């Protein structure tokens, strides 16, 4: 999976996050509640998820995962446990505005990174070819646009539905 930069970033990493998400929902509800209480609410877990995912967006972290076994192990543990799991625990407890904030921030970050990867005059990862980087950048922008459209559509549909007297 890691042979392609795009698949590494846009399939493997999201799958690891999804694994953590599923793990959180598999926990007994009282455990979930206990973890939330421990953090005092949804804000701290969301911060953990944002910052941990930010770390794995660094080209250096991606390179390290390919060349250093310890970094690879860290990637396989922190993406589920520090991104997927805390996000799942807190997502439903965030206000709609906070959810919109987190989501649009994520989408715009993805778009900016994608644009950087596409137009950087150099390779940012030593383990990947330059055209792999451009390919990954293109997919990041496609996913960002799709992610934003999906969110906008969901929001509009929700607003429309709320106006509906039915």
């Amino acid at each position, binding site marked *: 999976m890691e042979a392609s930069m795009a698949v590494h970033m846009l399939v493997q990493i999201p799958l690891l996050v999804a694994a953590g998400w599923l793990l959180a929902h598999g926990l007994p509800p009282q455990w979930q509640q206990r973890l939330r209480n421990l953090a*005092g609410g949804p*804000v*701290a877990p969301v*911060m953990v998820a944002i910052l*941990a995912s930010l770390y794995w967006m*660094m*080209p*250096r972290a991606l390179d390290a995962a390919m060349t250093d076994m310890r970094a690879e192990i860290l990637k396989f543990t922190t993406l589920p446990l520090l991104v997927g799991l805390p996000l799942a625990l807190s997502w439903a407890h965030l206000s709609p505005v906070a959810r919109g904030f987190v989501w649009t921030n994520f989408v715009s970050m993805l778009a900016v990174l994608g644009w950087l990867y596409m137009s950087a005059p150099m390779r940012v*990862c*030593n383990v990947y070819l330059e055209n792999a980087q451009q390919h990954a950048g293109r997919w990041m922008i496609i996913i960002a646009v799709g992610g934003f459209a999906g969110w906008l559509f969901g929001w509009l549909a929700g607003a429309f539905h709320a106006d509906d007297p039915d």
Partner: protein
Amino acid sequence: MNLRSLSATLVVMLAAAAVFYWGTDGFRAFTAETARRVEVVDKPRAMPHVQLLDQMGRMFTLQDLAGDPVIVEFIFTRCQTVCLSLGALFYQLQNSLPDHGPASRLQLVTISFDLDNDDRAALHEWAGRFDADPQRWRVARPVDEQGLQALLEAFGVIVIPDAVHGFEHNVAVHLLDSHGRLAHIDDIQPPERLISLVDRLQ
């Protein structure tokens, strides 16, 4: 936001700042290429003893050159792009060295990582293309795969095959100090700038 949530968030931010500080060498290196450059400046690195064969058929190791400053670059002779710029840079360097000072003793070493194709004849042909002075500039290859891997590892050079039977690799020049330690890695720079770097390193 309750006090518990606020303090938990603060702890998270502080921990993250520490992790990012550690993971980027103090917010200096966000790519692996910058990281390897920062690392050798902070802590010059000794090089492994690897047998090299040059364009004249001479066997040597980088340690044999210790005492003089050395600049090392990595190439493969079939390369039609950046390796030619690296070759042109060494050509300019060998022709613009000063008569005095550490840089007057500078040794240039071009190392090929393409063991399958680059035999002595290929190295000799490539050296000829740039009019390499064999007393100053050795165009060489490790004698075996094991030596090559040790060398790439020590320099932090990563070579990956591309779609057209060539390779992509870090494009950089590697400066060894007079103890033979890797002490500075840089982009292709004007010769004058590299010469002043060499003088400063010794």
